[in-house]
């Protein structure tokens, strides 16, 4: 089974994000492999271990995004493809999906695994557009995947449980963080990753026109910090005060 996992390098969740003058995310900050993608890679590796085949990581990003691919190769993925091109700077979801689709099409994958949404952009639009461009059925929000020959069955996370969906390969799935706990890479895996192939492709190589951006990010703001709560000293009326507080907040 050939499995493609899409991966993205994102700013470290532990650092704050700043937009550059051209409204792209500042990348001089610490960057990491998207934690959600680590789960997707883990699922890909487990499926490969159970059914054989190959796990190929595909990413779009600046040259530095090779580090994110390397991290997945250290975990055990077989090779990587990095789509990098000056004209991709500030790419919206549609352009990103077109670039990824061109690279993935050439791979003829049985299974394409994507995260539900990237940690930084959070549009959640790339996987559905990708499925459409590749002409694949998409099974979204998977928290469990089973493969039996050409049948792919997933448990799709819902608000109060899950539904079971099935499709025939080739298929695209999006996975939640509940899918699999990413493994720790071994030193042997880390060293082996250094000699694994990471092919670098430009838009020209893929025959993709960058075209007009349909969307741009105008600005970004942090959510308002939570205000400190009220501290009630118990002078004998604490219970009444708490009841009043809850009543005022309309939770009682």
């Amino acid at each position, binding site marked *: 089974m050939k499995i493609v996992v899409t991966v993205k390098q994102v700013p470290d969740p532990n650092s704050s994000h700043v937009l550059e003058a051209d409204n792209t995310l500042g990348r001089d900050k610490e960057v990491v492999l998207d934690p959600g993608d680590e789960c997707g890679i883990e699922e890909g590796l487990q499926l490969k271990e159970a059914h054989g085949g190959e796990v190929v990581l595909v990413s779009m990003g600046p040259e530095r995004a090779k580090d994110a691919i390397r*991290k997945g190769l*250290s975990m055990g993925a077989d090779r990587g493809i990095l789509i990098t091109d000056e004209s991709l700077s500030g790419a919206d979801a549609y352009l990103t999906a077109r670039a990824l689709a061109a690279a993935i099409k050439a791979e003829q994958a049985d299974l394409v695994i994507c995260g539900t949404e990237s940690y930084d952009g959070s549009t959640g639009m790339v996987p559905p557009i990708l499925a459409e461009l590749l002409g694949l059925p998409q099974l979204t929000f998977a928290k469990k995947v089973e493969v039996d020959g050409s049948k792919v069955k997933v448990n799709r996370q819902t608000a109060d449980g899950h539904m079971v969906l099935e499709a025939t390969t080739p298929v695209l799935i999006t996975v939640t963080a509940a899918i699999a706990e990413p493994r*720790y*890479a*071994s*030193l*042997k895996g*880390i*060293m082996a990753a*250094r000699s694994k192939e990471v092919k670098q492709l430009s838009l020209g190589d893929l025959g993709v026109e960058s075209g007009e951006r349909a969307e741009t990010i105008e600005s970004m703001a942090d959510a308002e910090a939570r205000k400190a709560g009220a501290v009630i000293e118990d002078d004998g009326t604490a219970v009444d005060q708490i009841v009043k507080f809850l009543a005022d907040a309309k939770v009682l």
Partner: protein
Amino acid sequence: MYFSDAHEELRLHIRRFLEKEVQPHLDEWEETTFPDSIFRRFGELGFLGLRYPPEYGGQGGDYFSAVVLSEEMSKAGLGGLAMAVDVQSEMATPPVFRFGTEEQKQKWLVPAIRGEHIAALAITEPDAGSDVAGITTVARRDGDDFIVNGRKIFITSGARCQWALVVTKTDRERGHSGYNLFVIEKGTPGFSVTRTLKKLGMHSSDTAELLFEDCRVPAANLIGEEGEGFKHIMWELQGERMIAAAGAIAGAQRTFEYAMNYAQNRSAFGQPISQFQVIKHRLVDMGTKIAAVQAFVYQTARQWDQGEYPVREISQAKLLATQVAVEVADDAIQILGGHGYMQEFPVERAWRNARLARIGAGTDEIMKEIIAKTYGL
């Protein structure tokens, strides 16, 4: 300068593993000692064989990969568990790897790398610690076997181990000849654990007294050349001291950072205590000593990694790093005041754990004796 990208990537994986699977249990393991299953987990992840070749299940790394593990274990405050891991990978198994036969490596090294065996190293005796030439555990040949009699004490993982590498001599005469190293397996008739010992620190590790009474050990368990055991164990001690130095100074760095952060956030007389010059300068002294010793430890580790045998530098690194670690922990307790003395804060445990390193693997005084000899004194 000393660490490659691969080392740093390994460091992140080790750190994440320790944060998720080890640190949440440390307080409990101080009471109960660690479960053997955590060794299997270390083994599964390749952390017990970082420097061993892949044909034995190792990871094929260099010495600095072992340094990374030791540093991360110290920085995560593993204490007794870190000591047991170091005993496994840097003390008990290196002689089996270096001096053992292929069959011996398959039998004892491979399962230790997997974490299925826990190994101990037994040198010290009730009446001979620093004075290794004064040990009295005797192994006398009897046909295809050796008969071992004697007592070993303060043996890390002695109670839980599957096998111990035991230092013996052919007769009780003093001197450096007639030494033999044996792997002696638990369950061998005549090999018993007489007691486990309560101690100042390193509570998550077990420390035991071992007894050998007419214990029949096959000659096939002799590690290295017959009669050459003293030389072999002197080589082993270099690696033991090197890793002790690396772990000690990384632990000191952690304690220093903790104390610095505390001093910036604790106020007295209307200002953070880090503003008092005595405390500020104390912190500067701590950081400066650590920085200097750290550089020396790395430089010596590089020599060791490159196959040199720098006895003077290793002894100096071990002496200094462990002394600085104790000084820094003591300073940290002072900076934290009463909080520093309480078990809710990590520095009292850091001090109790660090204190061992000035005794184990050769005391301060023995390090100085060795260094003196290299100067021709």
